[in-house]
C-alpha cells in the first residue's frame, strides 16, 4: 500500500459516558474490498456512519486522497451507500431511483438515461426500469439500491449489512453479484456484517471489531491461521478453548500443560503470559486427530456426542477436567466407524496449529 487512498485516523465516538468507537485506525487501498466484521454493538456500524457523515466523531480524522472528509456534509461527500433496510424511494420507479443522484447533480438527460441503462445492466435488472420498488423482491430492491449508489461513480461504496433481511439462498446469490460488481467496477467497498462466512466470501481484508475497537486486520486466511486475540479466534471459524498452565514462554512460543496429563511445546503465544500463569489453548475441530488407541502424545477424552452433518461428522468429547472439545472428521473416516458415546479416545494436534492466549 504505497499511498493510502482512504485513511481513518484515531476515530473515537462517545455518546455521553459510553464510548462506541475507540480510536480506530485504518488504511484502505483504492479498489479494496474491506469488511468490518463484529457482533452488534461492536462499533462497526458507527464507524461506517461516521464515514457517511450521519455521525460526527468525538475526535479523529478521515482522509480521502489526503483530504479531510469530516468538513464535508453527507450530500457533498459523493459517497455511495447501500443500507440494511430497503431505502429505495417508494414513489419513484426503479429507473427514477437510479437517476435520482444524477438528477440532483443536474446532469444532462441523455447522460442520465445512458447511465441508468448501464447501471441496470450492471445489476442484471434490464427491463425493470418502470417497476415500482414495492413490486420487486427484497433481493431485487437491494440490487437497485446498489445500482443507485454506483450511478454517480463514487470513490467509496459503503454497505451496511445489506443482505441481513434476505434468506440464506438469496444472500449467497447476491454475494456473488456483489463480488462480480466489485471486480467489474473496481470501486472501493467498505462492507459491514456480523456474518463471518459473508465476510470471508467477499473481502480482500477483514477488520474484526470488538467492543468499539479493531482487534485485528488481515485477509481471511491470516485471521483464521493466526488470530491475534481470543475474540478473533472465536469469531472466525469454529474453535474450542481449554484452560492450560504456561510452563515457559519465549519468542512468541510457549510450553504449556493441559489437564495435568500432557505438556505441549512450541505453541504460538498471543498476549502476555509468564511461567506458571493460567492461559487458554485454542484448538480448531478440523485440526484435531482422533485415535482409538492409547498413545503418549494423545490427550485422553471421552466421546459425549456424535452428530452427522452430511459430508462431516462432528464428535463432541469431554476432557478429564470436564471441558468440551469438538473434532470434525470427514464422513466415512476409519477413526469413527463404530464409535459410540462413552468410548475413550485420544486426541492429538500439531502444536503449530494451536494457539495460546494469555489472560
Amino acid at each position, binding site marked *: 500500500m504505497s499511498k493510502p487512498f482512504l485513511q481513518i485516523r484515531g476515530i473515537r465516538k462517545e455518546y455521553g459516558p459510553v464510548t462506541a468507537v475507540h480510536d480506530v485506525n485504518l488504511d484502505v487501498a483504492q479498489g479494496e474490498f474491506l469488511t468490518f466484521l463484529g457482533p452488534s454493538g461492536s462499533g462497526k456500524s458507527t464507524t461506517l456512519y461516521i464515514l457517511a457523515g450521519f455521525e460526527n466523531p468525538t475526535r479523529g480524522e478521515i482522509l480521502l486522497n489526503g483530504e479531510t472528509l469530516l468538513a464535508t456534509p453527507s*450530500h457533498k461527500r459523493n459517497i455511495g451507500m447501500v443500507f440494511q433496510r430497503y431505502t429505495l424511494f417508494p414513489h419513484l420507479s426503479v429507473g427514477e431511483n437510479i437517476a435520482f443522484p444524477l438528477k440532483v447533480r443536474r446532469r444532462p438527460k441523455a447522460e442520465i438515461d445512458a447511465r441508468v441503462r448501464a447501471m441496470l445492466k450492471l445489476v442484471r435488472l434490464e427491463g425493470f426500469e418502470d417497476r415500482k420498488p414495492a413490486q420487486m423482491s427484497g433481493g431485487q430492491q437491494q440490487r437497485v439500491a446498489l445500482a443507485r449508489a454506483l450511478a454517480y461513480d463514487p470513490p467509496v461504496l459503503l454497505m451496511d449489512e445489506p443482505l441481513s433481511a434476505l434468506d440464506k439462498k438469496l444472500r449467497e446469490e447476491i454475494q456473488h453479484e456483489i463480488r462480480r460488481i466489485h471486480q467489474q467496477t473496481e470501486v472501493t467497498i467498505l462492507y459491514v456484517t456480523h456474518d463471518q462466512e459473508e465476510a470471508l466470501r467477499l473481502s480482500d481484508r477483514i477488520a474484526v471489531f470488538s467492543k468499539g475497537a479493531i482487534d485485528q486486520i488481515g485477509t481471511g486466511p491470516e485471521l483464521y491461521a493466526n488470530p491475534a486475540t481470543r475474540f478473533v479466534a472465536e469469531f472466525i471459524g469454529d474453535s474450542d478453548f481449554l484452560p492450560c498452565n504456561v510452563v515457559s514462554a519465549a519468542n512468541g512460543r510457549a510450553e504449556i500443560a493441559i489437564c495435568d496429563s500432557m505438556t505441549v511445546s512450541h505453541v504460538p503465544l498471543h498476549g502476555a503470559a509468564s511461567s506458571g500463569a493460567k492461559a487458554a489453548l485454542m484448538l480448531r475441530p478440523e485440526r484435531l486427530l482422533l485415535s482409538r488407541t492409547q498413545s503418549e502424545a494423545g490427550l485422553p477424552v471421552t466421546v459425549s456426542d456424535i452428530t452427522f452433518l452430511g459430508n462431516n461428522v462432528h464428535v463432541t468429547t469431554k476432557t478429564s477436567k470436564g471441558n468440551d472439545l469438538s473434532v470434525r472428521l470427514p464422513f466415512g473416516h476409519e477413526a469413527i466407524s463404530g464409535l459410540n458415546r462413552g468410548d475413550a479416545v485420544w486426541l492429538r494436534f500439531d502444536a503449530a496449529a494451536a494457539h495460546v492466549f494469555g489472560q
Partner: protein
Amino acid sequence: MVAQTETESAKHYAPVRARRPTDFDLTLPALGLLALFFVLPVAMLLTRSVTEPVPGLGNYAELMGSSTYLRVFANTFMVSGLVTFVSLLIGFPVAWALAIMPSRLASVVFAILLLSMWTNLLARTYAWMVLLQRTGVINKMLIGVGLVDKPLPLVNNLTGVTIGMTYIMLPFIILPLYGVIRKIDPAILQAAALCGANRWQSLVLVLLPLAMPGMAAGALMVFVMSLGYFVTPALLGGTANMMLAELIAQFVQSLVNWGMGGAAALVLLVVTLALYAVQLRFFGTDRLGGS
C-alpha cells in the same frame, strides 16, 4: 370415544349459523333517530327551496344570477382555500417536528393540540377577538416594540377570519400528516442525502411526495369543513367577506326567506358531498381519521 369427540366438535360448530350482533336490523333504532331528527329536517328545508314562494327553480335562478350571491360563493371558496393553504404551511413543519421529536415532548404537544380541539369553539373564537382587536395584546405589543405606529386592522376582515379558522383547522391537518410522516423511514432521507440531495432537494423530491397522501387528506378535510363554517367567520369576519353559512343564516333568521336559505344550503351540501366523494375515491375512509 370417537363418537363422543364427533358430537363435541359438532356442538362447537353449531353456533356459527346463529344470528350475529352485526345484523343490520340492530342499527334500525339509530337509523330511525337519524332519519327523524337529521334527514327529515334537511329534506324539509331543501323541499322549501323549490316550493317557496312559488314552486319551481326560481330560488336557484336568483342565487346563481345575482352577482352579490356569486360573490359570497367565490368568497367562501377563497377563504376556504386560503385557510387550507395556511394550515398546510404551518401544519407540515409541526407534523414533521412531532414525528422526529422525542416521544415525551411529542405527547405534550399532542396534549396541547387536543386540548385546543376540545375547548369550546365559541370561547376560542372570542379569545381571538380579544387578542386581535385594535386595543388587543397583539396590536399593543406591535406598537410597543415600534413595529407599527397605529393598530393593525386584524379583526372583522379576511385576516381575522384566516387566523381564527386556521387555528381551529390546524389539528385536522397535523394529525393525518403526522400519521403519514411517522411511517417514512428516516433511512430513506439518509439515502437521499448520500445520493447528493441537499435539504431542499430532499424535502421537495422525497419528503413532500411521500407525505402527499396525508397532506391531501388533511387539506380536503379542512377545505370541506371550512366551506360550511359559520361561527368564526361571523365573529371575526367583516361584512365585506361574507361566507355561505352566514348567508344561509341571514336568509333564515333576518329575512325569513326559507326558500332562498334552502337553496343556498343545497348548493353547499352538493359541493361538500362532491368533495367528500373525491376524498373517498382517492384516499378511502381509513385515511379520514389520520393515522
